[in-house]
């Protein structure tokens, strides 16, 4: 479609985005469309009515009701049953893929209109396109409406952006397929092991820490890359979080779009740090409680969120002063230790399992058993662990000033793309089990 037919181009993107969602979620596409239309109407109402606060309040209630129903009903019922002893027998509710992301994007649309940073879209198709745009629909980043409002109606798709987008997509694809999936195998073995030793527990959590970064940031890279191919500039979502020097620094680098969302739409409206000390603490804990719950319907995520809330309060109040004077290596060790412990809650099946895992990590069991799988996993995957370690550091920036950077990037991208396809194919390797007998 020629550039001048912007509406037609958007329509093509919209149709393919809906096909993309419908191909995996044929029944739930109606829920997503209903959610989008609801927010489209709220957007218009916020702009036109004098009772803006009420409309925003209603939009929050409705959006959260949808999210709570699909994501948290089973969790709530299980807990009510456990506390009261009443057996609440409800069918398992299937959560639409990406509901946390598209609900938050839809809410940001209404909020941005309310705060006056953007105008309501008259054309509902543009709102549907903004929320359902396929690159970021199911795994983020959470793109605020004001970020791409202008690009929906006028954007410039050019060769440079397309090439950059392809490079970003390939890098994300490789991170997911080559590193995250391989690390996931190790993490799954460790977290599935009924009797761990200390070494195995550490190998497992280090592998998981790499897995989650290379997995999540890979989806963001692919989304940002695909967005660029189509002329959209989504915000960066990860900025080498494992080189962070404190937890405050870590959260400036990890899932940036979510942190920014909570900062702008929860923390600051609650008063941020421009209030009493007690209210400030409340604001921080509220944000981190919500951050935890957003990640999943489980007590593990609640604890994980509150854990970070407490650590950030400690850092803000006195630890940061000490950290700033500490050697860089110590700051880094401290940060990664906190992150690794946090990810135990994130990965374990339940709080008891997390607690047991942490106990083994910190010496509450055997340090090393000769029967353990840990040394095998460590020696067998040493090269991949080193690749993961290097890949989590901004080594690539060393090439920024290099003369033939573009040529290098081209060669590197084509190479890792082919390697990724080879790894992707290997994931389908599935020998018939009766081979053994």
């Amino acid at each position: 479609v020629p550039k001048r037919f912007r509406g037609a181009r958007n329509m093509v993107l919209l149709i393919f985005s809906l096909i993309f969602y419908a191909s995996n979620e044929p029944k739930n596409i109606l829920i997503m469309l209903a959610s989008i239309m609801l927010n489209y109407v709220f957007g218009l109402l916020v702009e036109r009515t004098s009772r803006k606060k009420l409309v925003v309040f209603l939009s929050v209630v409705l959006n959260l009701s949808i999210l709570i129903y699909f994501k948290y009903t089973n969790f709530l019922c299980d807990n009510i049953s456990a506390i009261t002893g009443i057996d609440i027998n409800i069918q398992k509710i299937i959560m639409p893929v990406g509901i946390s992301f598209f609900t938050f994007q839809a809410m940001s649309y209404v909020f941005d209109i309310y705060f006056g940073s953007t105008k309501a879209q008259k054309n509902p198709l543009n709102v549907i396109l903004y929320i359902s745009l396929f690159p970021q629909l199911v795994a983020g980043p959470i793109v605020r409406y004001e970020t791409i409002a202008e690009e929906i109606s006028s954007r410039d798709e050019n060769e440079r952006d397309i090439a950059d987008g392809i490079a970003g997509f390939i890098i994300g694809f490789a991170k997911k397929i080559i590193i995250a999936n391989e690390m996931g195998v190790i993490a799954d073995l460790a977290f599935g092991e009924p009797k761990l030793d200390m070494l195995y527990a550490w190998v497992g959590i280090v592998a998981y820490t790499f897995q989650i970064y290379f997995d999540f940031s890979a989806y963001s890279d692919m989304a940002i890359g695909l967005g660029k191919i189509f002329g959209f500039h989504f915000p960066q979502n990860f900025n080498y979080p494992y080189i962070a020097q404190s937890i405050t620094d870590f959260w400036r680098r990890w899932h940036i779009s979510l942190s920014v969302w909570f900062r702008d739409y929860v923390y600051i409206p609650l008063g941020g740090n421009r209030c009493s000390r007690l209210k400030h603490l409340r604001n921080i804990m509220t944000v981190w409680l919500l951050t935890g719950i957003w990640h999943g319907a489980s007590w593990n995520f609640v604890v994980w969120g509150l854990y970070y809330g407490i650590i950030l309060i400690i850092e803000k109040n006195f630890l940061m002063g000490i950290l700033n004077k500490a050697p860089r290596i110590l700051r880094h060790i401290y940060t990664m230790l906190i992150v690794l412990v946090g990810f135990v809650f994130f990965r374990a099946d339940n709080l008891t399992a997390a607690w047991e895992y942490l106990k083994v990590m910190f010496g509450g069991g055997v340090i090393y058993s000769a029967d353990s799988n840990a040394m095998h996993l460590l020696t067998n995957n040493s090269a991949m662990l080193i690749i993961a370690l290097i890949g989590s550091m901004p080594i690539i920036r060393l090439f920024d000033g290099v003369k033939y950077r573009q040529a290098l990037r081209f060669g590197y991208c084509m190479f890792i793309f082919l390697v990724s396809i080879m790894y992707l194919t290997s994931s389908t390797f599935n020998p018939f089990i009766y081979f053994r007998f």
Partner: protein
Amino acid sequence: MMTNKIFNRLMIVGFSVIIFGFSALTLFSKHGELSFYENRYLAKPVSLTWDSYLSGEFVSGNEDAFSDNIFMRDNMLKLYTVVNRSCLGKNEVNKVVFGEDILLPYYSSNYYDEAAVNSDISTMTDSLTKLNSLVNEQGGRFVFAAVPAQFSLYRDKFPKYSCTFAPKLDYERSSFINGTLKAAGVPVIDLKTVFEARADRDKLYYKTDHHYNCNGAFVAYQSILQNLNEQTGYDLKILTEDDLEYKTFPNRFLGSSARKIYDIYDNDDRLEICYPKKQIPFKRYDNGEEVEATVFSLPNEGDYADYEAFMGGDKAETLIDTNRPELPTALIFGDSYTNAVESLLYYSFDKTYSIDLRYYREMSLADYIKEKKPDVVIYVRDDTIYLSSENNGCFFEIPQ
């Protein structure tokens, strides 16, 4: 600036060629039905119907079909194996461990729940005791030949840290084979002890397959017949090495472990068969149908050879009839470890029945014994699975 422009264009072209090229070649190239190395059927495309679409089967099924039939899939899987072994220095790829001059399967489960294992031991001991009694009631004799799997016998050949299953297997062997079974009076042969005592231990199994070779099978055969002669007072003819002719095939041998790593491991494994110098005539029936009277399925020139050469692989039911009514009849059952033993066993019996309960669904083993009333019943199973009550561990009902 100009250079940047060129490389931007190259990036777009290169990416498009790879992504659309692979897709087009996958869609338009001819696909086989079977994956040779994985020994399974490849997924087929799913037709678009309202039901298949709504259930998600259309998308997931076609994703499976696409990835199963992706252009140059076998080459890519082979390359993946080479990259992991040679570039990343892995000593375990696709669940196969590269040992010292040997390939061994990898088992990641290193810990075991003693209570669960004890429960399995108790269940299987009860089952085998009942089976032994049933065979005796029918006038026959029973023996259980417990075979070590290749990696169990050659555990010392694993690279450091990769052999993590030994405590579980040792516990099962001491508590079950040499513990509860013997205490219950079930005749059992611990072939691991037999094999370990031999000077030629390293020549009894393949280097690239989990089965024993014809030498190991011959030792197992001799041990089983000796046990039966001692138990029954029969004077069953036991073949010795002098009675046998050996033949080695030059074909490349494709063992189960070598197959999983796309045969990238250089080795000197070969198919060797042994058969009595003095042949006897017999008829063979597979699943009730008369088939060629042979106990080997030999490879053609240039083809891969594999363990399926013995008895032509796994069959639900086989009968070898030597028409010598003066001799007793035998029933042998178990997984594929039975096949190589069967290729010698028939020589000492009138009729030799063989059933594999993974495939045989006509009746239960107990009913089969009641119907055929064999004079001896031989159970062959390996130490990775002999506590399982499934398939060849399910004696009194038809396995599910």
